[in-house]
């Protein structure tokens, strides 16, 4: 085996009931380099990584690390061998502190078995400072926002000085500011000879940070190229297998009546929020992590109580005390956090899709099974969700496909006002394009769309109007045309 490769994967295959997740994959990783792995949702990226880190065992194939053949039986072995991984799904210990989360399994000790608390906390502080992550290390994990948790997970993966760090969509939950921080960290790591496997659906990021790019499709190896020879178009071409001319196919739709307006809304994490959104309009909402955008939308959807303020739907004042009330009015909410508020992971694809629209296939008491199945299949087809069937337990779908199920579920009710909170989080470029097309389509049919996003290109590309939120207050409103990254960031950072 040639030594200049830190890691070699050969003829690796893995299948699940109904799916061949990996099919004769090979991959070579060099020390000190960033190797991006890309591919559509369900291509097999995470599965490949879980095999590397010892969470899954392959059906066949071989892995060589530092020249020796390895087969990890547990993550424990993998970590000892010098691998570490940022998982696509957050894996926090909710009731433990940030510091404890970071060093879980590798606590500094006074003597064997005895934790050195002071060192634990000071080390954690040092690390967070070095990485420039502004999160107090003695906070309980369950008080952090998703974005904050994500940064902690990054710090955790860095903290055990691994020779190879796998990053499975580390930026899907964070905004540009943190992305820059992360890239700083990656450059520092590679400079010290650490190899990084970087998984992302964001072209610009990949082109910016990667040395090599490997593309998978439906579990098969498609190509490996030097990032230098690639540009956005060719990259998209490799991934999707065809060219996507204009991802944001934004159409000009003239604004209709005001559908929803909010007056001086104050609540947990935000205060005196006022804005309108009209039929046919896409209202972008930008801001840094923890700005409180999600909280605002949760309140509008009746998930959280408000302290003061009032809602108007189609001009007349309404009370929104529960999600049920919001949905009855015709408001739909696509949550940023599919695991916590989006999906029932233990249930099937079908049951998730129809959960909030059972009235469409029942007399409100008895469910019409055939009708329900048809509705589910239609949605699966319409949103082209990769699943063995409508009765697959959703837990086993790839991250991106889970996100698609959330969309299918919410849109099934045909809401008038649709709130998209980070709608394309973890979604592949092809699906993204579909979702954008869907949004414009919805707008064209006179729906009002509110889109929270931490991806500035997306905000700029899709919005007719942009509100910028900074710690719980609207600090600026920009018209779609006039908007630039710069003026958005100005309002966002102040």
């Amino acid at each position, binding site marked *: 085996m040639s030594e200049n490769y830190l890691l070699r994967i050969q003829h690796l295959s893995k299948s*699940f*009931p109904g799916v061949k997740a990996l099919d004769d994959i090979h991959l070579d990783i060099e020390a000190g380099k960033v190797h991006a792995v890309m591919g559509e949702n369900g291509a097999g990226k995470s599965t490949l990584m*879980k095999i590397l880190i010892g*969470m*899954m*065992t392959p059906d066949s194939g071989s892995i060589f690390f530092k020249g020796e053949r390895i087969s990890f039986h547990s993550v424990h072995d993998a970590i000892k061998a010098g691998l570490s991984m940022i998982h696509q799904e957050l894996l926090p210990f909710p009731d433990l502190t940030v510091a404890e989360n970071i060093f879980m399994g590798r606590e500094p000790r006074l003597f064997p078995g005895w934790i050195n608390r002071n060192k634990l906390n000071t080390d954690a502080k040092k690390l967070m400072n070095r990485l420039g992550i502004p999160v107090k290390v003695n906070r309980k994990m369950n008080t952090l926002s998703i974005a904050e948790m994500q940064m902690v997970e990054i710090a955790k993966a860095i903290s055990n000085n691994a020779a190879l760090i796998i990053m499975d969509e580390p930026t899907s939950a964070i905004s540009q500011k943190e992305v820059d921080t992360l890239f700083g960290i990656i450059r520092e790591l590679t400079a010290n000879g650490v190899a990084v496997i970087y998984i992302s659906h964001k072209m610009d990021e990949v082109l910016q940070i990667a040395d090599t790019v490997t593309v998978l499709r439906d579990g098969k190896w498609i190509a490996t190229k030097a990032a230098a020879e690639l540009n956005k178009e060719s990259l998209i071409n490799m991934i999707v297998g065809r060219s996507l001319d204009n991802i944001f196919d934004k159409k000009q739709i003239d604004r209709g009546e005001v559908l929803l307006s909010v007056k001086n809304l104050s609540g947990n994490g935000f205060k005196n929020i006022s804005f309108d959104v009209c039929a046919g309009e896409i209202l972008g909402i930008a801001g840094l992590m923890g700005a409180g955008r999600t909280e605002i939308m949760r309140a509008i*959807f009746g*998930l959280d109580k408000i302290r003061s303020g009032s809602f108007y739907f189609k001009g007349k004042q309404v009370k929104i005390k*529960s*999600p*049920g009330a*919001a*949905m*009855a009015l015709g408001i739909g*909410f696509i*949550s940023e956090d599919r695991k*916590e*508020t*989006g*999906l*029932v*992971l*233990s*249930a099937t694809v079908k*049951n998730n899709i129809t*959960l*909030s629209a*059972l009235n469409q296939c*029942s007399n*409100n*008491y*008895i*469910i019409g*099974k055939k009708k329900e199945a048809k509705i589910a299949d239609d949605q699966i087809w319409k949103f082209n969700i990769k699943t063995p069937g409508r009765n697959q*337990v959703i*837990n*086993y779908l790839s991250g991106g496909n889970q996100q698609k199920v959330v969309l299918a*579920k919410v849109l099934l009710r045909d809401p008038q006002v649709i709130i998209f909170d980070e709608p394309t989080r973890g979604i592949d470029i092809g699906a993204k394009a579909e979702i954008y097309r869907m949004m414009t389509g919805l707008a064209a049919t006179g729906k009002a769309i509110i889109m929270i996003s931490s991806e500035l290109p997306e905000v700029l590309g899709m919005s007719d109007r942009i509100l910028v939120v900074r710690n719980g207050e609207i600090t600026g409103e920009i018209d779609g045309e006039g908007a630039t990254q710069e003026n958005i960031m100005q309002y966002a950072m102040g």
Partner: protein
Amino acid sequence: MIAGKLKQASDIISRYGIFIAFIVLCILLSLATPHFLTGQNLLIILRQVSVNGILAIGVTFVIITGGIDLSLGSVVALTGVVAAGFAHPGTYPLIVPLLIGLFTGVVVGLINGLVITLGRVAPFIVTLGMMTIARGLALVWSDGRPVSNLSPAFNFIGGGDWLYIPVPILLFMLVIVVSYILLNNTTIGRYIYAVGGNEQAAKASGIRVNAVKLFAYIICGGLAALAGIVLASRITTGQPNAGIAYELDAIAAVVIGGTSLMGGRGTVTGTVVGVLIIGVINNGLDLLNVSSYYQQIIKGVIIIGAVLLDRRNAK
């Protein structure tokens, strides 16, 4: 994830796993004693399991929502003595003790549900408290003595036959069918699974989580009352100390049947199989006249063994 994979694979096996365990058990017993596989004995087993069966199906609803009910046994006693108190010959028509008994159980379930949802107290502790409360009430109501001398009509519920089939069995069947439909073909049933699977998501889907939970606890209380009435009628007396530890057998049956105590997953059919397994063990060990001491050991081993065969309970 690896767990996930195994789980999925096993989900397929498991759809049959516990049935297999049950069949194996029956075959072994038929080989061990000629008295097991007789029509009469099977009928007797069914009659013996009907009380635990009704309880187990009731608590299945609660467990799917992610809760638990430890007050079952005491509620059996309470509703038994209360109903019996109105069932003396020549006092009230049969319907009165039945309605009052069921009502008592429903009220207990309602209280459990309210404290759990509005009070936001762990179901385990609420129903544990209710366990001693209901027991106390049963003792107060009956002054610590059995309530006996009950009308023939009342005793018919637990002791009588209808078309050659014992009434308890018919009631058990009825409960099975209704519950099956409730959980599989109705919206409320779907909501029960959703609430147990992910409360947050259920809420965000516009489901009235508290109402759903209340419903589950009320069903559970009502069925516990039915079981209490059947038992009192079967032993022709309301016993304030009846049903001690019945909740454990009921919950065991549910878990053996593959319902996850984490909530979100579970089936009526599974519970029924669980109930039958426990019933067959008790019956078989008596038929074989295994000494009481060893009976307990064997029973425990078989229960664990049966579940080992069934991967649904993998955590």
